[in-house]
């Protein structure tokens, strides 16, 4: 599980569904959730999580994407396997891992040092811990 420190900037709730906005490494993030721990409020520090297989990558300009989390990252390393690639990304102080198909990695020609956008759907982002 990839881990990112974040601070809550907004919470919206309706009928047991919650959308939480965060700031992490000076970038905005958003999560879709059911009812949340009551102690969470604007200003709370949390540890966010996202599975490596739930992080997609894009290079170049992005237009009109429904994905809530489009994080600016830099490729640290690319490990190409037979069918899959494991890509390490620098995001602020965190190192994220994205697992994509090797074909995709080759198609967008991922190289260390590349600026790429890490894409995470709001429903695939979780709060792992509340920092006290």
């Amino acid at each position: 599980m990839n881990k990112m420190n974040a601070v809550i900037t907004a919470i919206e709730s309706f009928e047991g569904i919650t959308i939480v906005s965060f700031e992490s490494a000076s970038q905005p993030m958003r999560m879709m959730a059911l009812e949340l721990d009551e102690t969470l409020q604007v200003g709370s520090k949390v540890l966010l999580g996202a599975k490596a297989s739930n992080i997609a990558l894009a290079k170049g300009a992005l237009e009109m994407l429904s994905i809530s989390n489009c994080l600016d990252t830099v490729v640290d390393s690319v490990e190409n396997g037979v069918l899959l690639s494991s890509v390490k990304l620098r995001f602020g102080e965190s190192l994220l891992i994205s697992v994509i198909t090797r074909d995709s990695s080759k198609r967008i020609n991922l190289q260390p040092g590349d600026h790429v956008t890490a894409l995470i759907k709001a429903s695939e982002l979780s709060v792992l811990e509340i920092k006290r």
Partner: protein
Amino acid sequence: MININIQKQLQGSSGAMELNVDLHIKEHSFVALAGQSGSGKTTLLRILAGLEKAAGVIDVSGVLWQDEKKSVVPQKRNIGFVFQDYALFANMSVEQNLLYVNKDRELAKHLLMLTELSELKDRLPNTLSGGQKQRVSLCRALMNRPKLLLMDEPLSALDPGMRTKLQHDILMLHKEFGTTTIMVSHDPSEIYRLADRVIMLEQGRVIQEGTSKEVLLHTRGSQKFSLTGELLDIIKADVIYIAVVAIGQQIVEVVLDEAEASSFKIGQRVQVNTKAFAPSLSH
């Protein structure tokens, strides 16, 4: 209000322990007592029934059942008790089992009608199915219109279909008779359907109390789908890792990244977590 504040030294499975609870139960509520075996659930039920001695106070809506000085005998506590193994009188008919508690023929007829047992009233218990026996036992427990209905895993000996039917009967009778019901149970579906409150015991103490969702829904942060299992294996596959986890009677697989794979040991207790948005249901 039913106030229970009792203490008793017990020989638990892992040595001596003290049963020490301070509970306040609202009248007419349905409470489930949950927790691992040996946590003191059945003992607590037997103390409430007056079948076992303990120190402390039991106050049922202003009537003292026990304090430092006295202990009211079981027959005078106005309780109904349903045991897991039915405990019916084998030599008495269904109807006689009910009338043994109280000679009110009208009430017996009404109870047997509600639980669809009217046609079986002259049968002996050993000619009945498990579900029918437990319905008789439930009716018998209500013959003296108890203030407190105590049930010790009443459905655990029954097959799943019969459980659902009995759950319905239990809830109907609980409402019809306005009893306060305390049921020992391990079964989350039973607890979720029947109980308004769940009390979780561990080593003789209350470790959690709340609605069934508050107590039984295990979460990890905002991840609402959380199951506990044993990590059986981590297999490297290409540039990822596959963890094999035993959960209950089943085995599941979870994909891990390199950093995750190196942070777990085979044999460890682990939680399998995901968001409520990820799984899908099929039948």
